[in-house]
């Protein structure tokens, strides 16, 4: 493992250990509903399903097709806020 992924793993472990990961996840979920992202995603998924036909599409097909679009559509403000919180968390647990 390179240094970067070691760091990621360490941060992820700390987030899980302190219960922060769960809170961040729920926070993100709420933010994404609020900013309309979830509705956008739902519409995109429906489009894909309509295009391919319900019989011929799996969850994984959807994930592959939608993930890049989904990432791109997350508002900067949401990303920024999550980053702030992770930073604040790390500042508090700076033994890492």
């Amino acid at each position: 493992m390179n240094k970067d992924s070691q760091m990621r793993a360490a941060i992820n472990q700390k987030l899980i250990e302190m219960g922060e990961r769960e809170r961040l996840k729920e926070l993100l979920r709420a933010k994404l509903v609020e900013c309309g992202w979830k509705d956008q995603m739902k519409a995109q998924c429906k489009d894909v399903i309509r295009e391919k036909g319900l019989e011929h599409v799996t969850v994984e097909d959807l994930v592959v097709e939608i993930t890049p679009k989904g990432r791109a559509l997350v508002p900067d403000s949401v990303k920024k806020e999550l980053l702030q919180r992770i930073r604040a968390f790390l500042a508090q647990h700076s033994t890492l």
Partner: protein
Amino acid sequence: CNGAWLQRKQHTLQPTYYVMSLYPQIMFCFGRARRSSRCGSPAGCSHVNAYKVDNWRPNLRVIYQCFVWSGSAETRRRKAKSCICHMCGAHLNRLHSCLYCVFFGCFTKKHIHEHAKNKRHNLAIDLLYGGIYCFVCQDYIYDKDMEQIAKEEQRKAWKLQGVGEKYSTWEPTKRELDLLRHNPKRRKMTTNCTIGLRGLINLGNTCFMNCIVQALTHTPLLRDFFLSDRHKCEMQSNSCLVCEMSQLFQEFYSGHRSPHIPFRLLHLVWTHARHLAGYEQQDAHEFLIAALDVLHRHCKGDTTNDNGKKANNPNHCNCIIDQIFTGGLQSDVTCQVCHGVSTTIDPFWDISLDLPGSSTPFWPLSPGGDGGTVNGESHLSGATTLTDCLRRFTRPEHLGSSAKIKCGGCHSYQESTKQLTMKKLPIVACFHLKRFEHSAKLRRKITTYVSFPLELDMTPFMASRWASTNYLPPGLYVLVRYALFAVVNHQGTLESGHYTSFIRQHKDQWFKCDDAIITKASIKDVLDSEGYLLFYHKQFLEYE
């Protein structure tokens, strides 16, 4: 809920982590897509039945407890350590656990798929979201019993962590579903709609009340509280001001255009705050404080069901008013002889600021001196800024020889200095510019122009600023940034004046409320106004 329609936000709104800048829509009523309609194959997955034998329920519960929701510190520690892909060592990449044996594998690189195929273990559980995947059907399964267990365990885990229900999505109760069915009309907030704007009839010098009502009804967190029907009334008679506010919010957000006549509100204010009774002009600031106080007292029933969690504000109250408006002011009195410091913390609902031009000297705080660029306010025009007023408010003040205080260190009366700083910032910071001077000698209005910003950084006025600025990584200051959302103005003289307000809708649309008349306003109109009460909303809210 009362009335012909329901207003709801899709998820339970907890003030503690609502971010205003992201407030684009309130969903009035939300038809949640039912799980069943999302299920891939209408017949459902038959492979799940093979799992449902013997003790499958307790087994599944243990998996949720230990590896998915991990409510206790012990299980979280274990999860953090042990949950890595057994094949590639990844921590992330959509980690799943086999339901038939102890195996963790990542989904992204298909390591969990490999395991499923080799061992013919068809079901795996997503360790982050708790969904259960069937490798034969190639789909997550939507099994009622399993979902029930997942939900119950998640609730327990949240409770263990003291998170409460605050992060859970709103699910209508049976009663609410009935109401929704009987009231099919839905209202949705779009980015340009003006729902929520409504004029208020002046009932005879009641503009002091109207301008505050406009500010309160446009306080994002307060609106969310009332529109999600969270007040549980415990008042005996129908004289509850909180109930009246609920009614008022319904009126404001009903979409009706005609001005509302707030006579019941006025009557209740007269009943509960007798010093404001009568048809004379009253002070809007005084009304604000009285209203907050009465609302706080009438909120009793709302404060009990918060998991018994101690209130985290200096007023020691969990009511919505204290959650939003209460901050803590730290007062440090330093003895000039022994330099011993005695510190007290007092709750506040607003900050009253002295202005230049009053009989108490405003300067020697040099205009635009150190930290002159704070909050991007310029002193080009020579105008005093809100930041100046706050710097003055938080400067060390020599108490003088006539105000000696008994020092705990010296055990005698000594001269001392006193400094006020913000210990705890409220979610809504309300600044009162002291424009009305009532001293023994004179009563007058101070019309000095004070410029105030759209965005305010409160970091420089915090008690722990020296400790924190050296410690926090760059960029963290955003956590104490505030955005202006309402301004109350007083026009005219002390004897005959008139109150109006500017309120903000959405992110940057401003409106002027002059009793029954509401007009569009520019940001310049707002910032050029004199300013009597300034309402700022915290932009990033910590969850506690």
